[in-house]
């Protein structure tokens, strides 16, 4: 638990020595690629103007890895994550998750894919206000195939004693942890997190990151995290930087830091 801030400094991230843009690290190649994204583009037609949210993105995600996406606002991070989570489909290109083709599947198959394989965590929690913490989790475990008990999921995020509170009775960080519990309770293959700490203060944010790290470590879940905080990259296996709808840099951390060691 010693602090070694320099390693996770953004200067370290951009250091050419440890950076090989658009290439996969040899270590990762031994692992199974769960997501295959080939030449993904997303174009929004806004009247006369075309907005290119993604431009021919190539990316694989591997089983059990923790990936952090960084990039300026509007660079296409959310768009990419939403496509991975089958909330959105690309304008062109192909996305596969194991043997599921996410580009050509009809809506009901995408729904089933989300139901069986993906857990989501968002900036604004998106909990159901009329259900208690426990019920928000059981809502998902009821439709999942091999869920963990809802209480266990909440215990994992440290909320074992707040089971019967409604969202409005919980703090932002607690609500976000309920959202994580809800996302992991189904034992998803991937956990997609879009700015999970965006609405939280420093220490609460860290608490949430610890939970994510622990899920990744203990359950072997592939975790993708979008953030504006470059220092969070320190806890990732890989840090992917985006700009104007393109992946501009992939950085492989040789040494992952624990969330408590991060500094921002």
């Amino acid at each position, binding site marked *: 638990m010693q602090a070694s801030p320099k390693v996770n400094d953004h200067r370290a991230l951009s250091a050419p020595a440890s950076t090989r843009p658009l290439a996969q690290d040899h270590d990762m190649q031994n692992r199974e690629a769960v997501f295959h994204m080939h030449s993904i583009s997303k174009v929004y037609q806004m009247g006369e103007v075309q907005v290119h949210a993604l431009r021919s993105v190539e990316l694989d995600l591997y089983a059990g890895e923790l990936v952090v996406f960084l990039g300026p606002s509007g660079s296409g991070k959310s768009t990419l994550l939403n496509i991975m989570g089958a909330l959105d489909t690309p304008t062109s290109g192909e996305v596969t998750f194991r043997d599921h083709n996410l580009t050509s599947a009809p809506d009901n198959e995408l729904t089933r894919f989300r139901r069986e394989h993906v857990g989501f965590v968002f900036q604004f929690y998106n909990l159901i206000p009329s259900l208690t913490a426990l019920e928000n989790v059981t*809502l998902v475990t009821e439709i999942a195939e091999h869920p963990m008990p809802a209480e266990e999921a909440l215990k994992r995020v440290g909320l074992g004693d707040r089971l019967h509170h409604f969202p409005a009775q919980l703090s932002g960080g607690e609500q976000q942890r309920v959202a994580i519990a809800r996302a992991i309770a189904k034992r998803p293959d991937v956990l997609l997190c879009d700015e999970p700490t965006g609405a939280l203060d420093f220490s609460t944010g860290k608490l949430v990151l610890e939970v994510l790290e622990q899920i990744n470590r203990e359950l072997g879940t592939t975790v993708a995290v979008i953030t504006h905080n470059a220092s969070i990259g320190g806890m990732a296996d890989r840090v992917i930087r985006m700009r104007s709808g393109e992946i501009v840099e992939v950085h492989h951390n040789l040494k992952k830091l624990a969330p408590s060691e991060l500094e921002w």
Partner: protein
Amino acid sequence: MHTLHRKLLRDLLHLRGQVIAVALVVACGVASFVAMRSTYVSLLSSQQNYYRDYRFADVFVQLKRAPEAAASRLADISNVATVQTRVVMDVILDVPGLAEPAVGRLVSIPGRRSPMLNDLFLRRGRWVEPGTDGEVIASEAFTAANKLDLGGSVQAVINGRWKRLTIVGIALSPEYIYEIRGGGSLFPDNRRFGVLWMDREVLGPVFNMDRAFNDVALTTAPGANLDEVIARVDQALATYGGLGAYAREDQLSHSFISDEIAQNRITSNVVPAIFLGVAAFLVHIVLSRLVKTQRMQVAIVKAFGYSNFMVGLHYLQLAMVSVLGGIALGVAVGWYFGLKLTTLYADFYRFPLLEYKISPMILVQAGLITLAAATLGAVGAVRAAVGLPPAEAMRPEPPARYRLGFFERFRAARSLSPATRMIVRNLERRPVRAAVSIFAICCSVSILVIEFGLMDSLNRMMDIQFRNVQREDVMVILNEPRSFRARAELARLPGVLLSEPFRAVPVRLRFEHHSHRSLILGLEKEHQLRRVLDRQLNDVSVPEDGILLGTKLAELLGVKPGQVVTVEVLEGRRPVRNLMVTGMADEILGLSAYMELGSLNRLMSEQAISGSFLKVDGKEEPTLYSLLKRTPGVGAVAIRQAAVDSFNETIRRSLAVSLTTLIVFASIIAVGIVYNGARIALSERANEMASLRILGFTRREIAVLLLGEQAVLTLLAIPFGYLLGYAVCVYLAARLQTELYRLPVYIKLATYLWSFVIVAVSALFSGWLVRRRLDRLDLVSVLKSREQ
């Protein structure tokens, strides 16, 4: 203001579904108000004008026979203004093209036209030629039903001889706006019953009524005490076989029409009230929701310096566009239906002029009441919009508070799935809204139950009467009581399988200080063609001693079985006897009392019958009918099947309009409530629904969650609707319970099922409309924003 107007247009466009739903509910309210009010006013003024212009009498009385001189005794009674003596006789008619014998009511008129009570409105043709034999003026309904025209003729059996009566005029009378024979018939059978007016100088001598009369109509001075006049009239006519005087209220045609008009008045108040209440509620919830979603906008507009008044007006305008649209549509539809309804009535009731009048007053009233209701609905929402200080309005709305609801304190509720809990908690969070929604849907269900239920009850009434009580095919009524020889003659008529003679005696019954006119029906000991039944349709035995009363009659007299009533016979030697009430029969039509034929004969010191119930071999019917037409002594023939047919025909005609209208009305309430409820729920919970979709819920599953709330409301409302509908049926049946008939409340299972189906289909349709929006929910955009 210009830009605010543009916002108004965009908001209207965005909310178009809800705006239309509100407008439709408003339109129903306005349409029903306009249609029923204008029909009511048209009917009432037609009736009043008719009565006034044609001098409809105040008191009526029938008697055996009195010399013309007796009329002056009546005129001398204080408070009697005008006396009109008449000769009135029912005779058998042979109408061209009609196999069965019809009954004609011959009513005398002065040979030279002069003002008289119950004056005729001569629609076509001319007055009878004084002193000319065989000329009649016929009632319009009768001639129309039998396709008779001026110059046409019918044959009448008068004093045992055929007489050709030629129609020289076609007329209407205020006495027969609703033209029925009486004696148990409730629905007009214009083919088999008609009124024919004849010169008194011609009619009188034929029936031994030369310078004599057997019927009186009179008017009273304004403010006269009618009961007193009636008592005096009865006194004056007692020696002439008076059958008891009665006031307008008991006059057949008048009491039917007045009931009908009164019903229109009630419905013209109740139905629009329901719709406008629902409309006010919808305006309230739609606008409240809009104001909430536009909280920020209100704050910004106010921060720019728009006044509270301008902001309030803006939202009020939004509501008013929808309401004014509804009013315009409602006035047009109401006008059309009013016209239709009046035409229907004109077809049914005979007024010289049933003019459909729609006064601007009604339209103004409709407009004002509706606007008032809508404003009432809008005011709370608008107040919320303007009441918020801009700084506070800038902040997002605090999250909705949920808590463990009332129902979840029960153990059983703990095993509910989270989805069910969401539905329950959302309902419990807005108990008032849920209650009002339930009430509104309940009204929609009950409208159907009432309409179908009254129909069921009416059918049930006719069913009991014509299947259980009246089992004869033909009832023959002799024009005066005959000896037992007639009995054998009736039994020998061709095709008669069974003949059960009866004696009917007009009486006045007294018990303590109550008295009532009635008819004692003397039945044979073993009678099967006319049964006397209790409420459960079990036979009640007719006593060999004593008297059996109909429940309504007993109620009017305040008498119970075991007590003794005084019977004043109004016929023959007019004996007065005390008789023990042995039991009660649950009669549906009329106010009769029953005795055993022998004991009635002993009371009358006679051996006589008034007629007979016949069971007839169908193949022999034509022979029987043609023979009955020419049998002397037969005063009237009533054919059961004809009565059933005239009932069905009446129902069929009135049903066509009212049924479709009410189904549309009920559906619009249900759609208005469910559609708006679901749209508002969608607007409030779009984020929630999108989140669920992201979690892997299918479109169908979230639809169940969102629409489940409305489904629960609808399902909860339905039993209440059944109860309310049933209760209103009971109330209406009690109110409709006149001395003429009693409506047994009887609602078929099918009625409940149909009401359910109609409301459920309306709800499903509304759900489907919202479901289409739900399917198009944008998942990604939800993630970009906090609530709202």
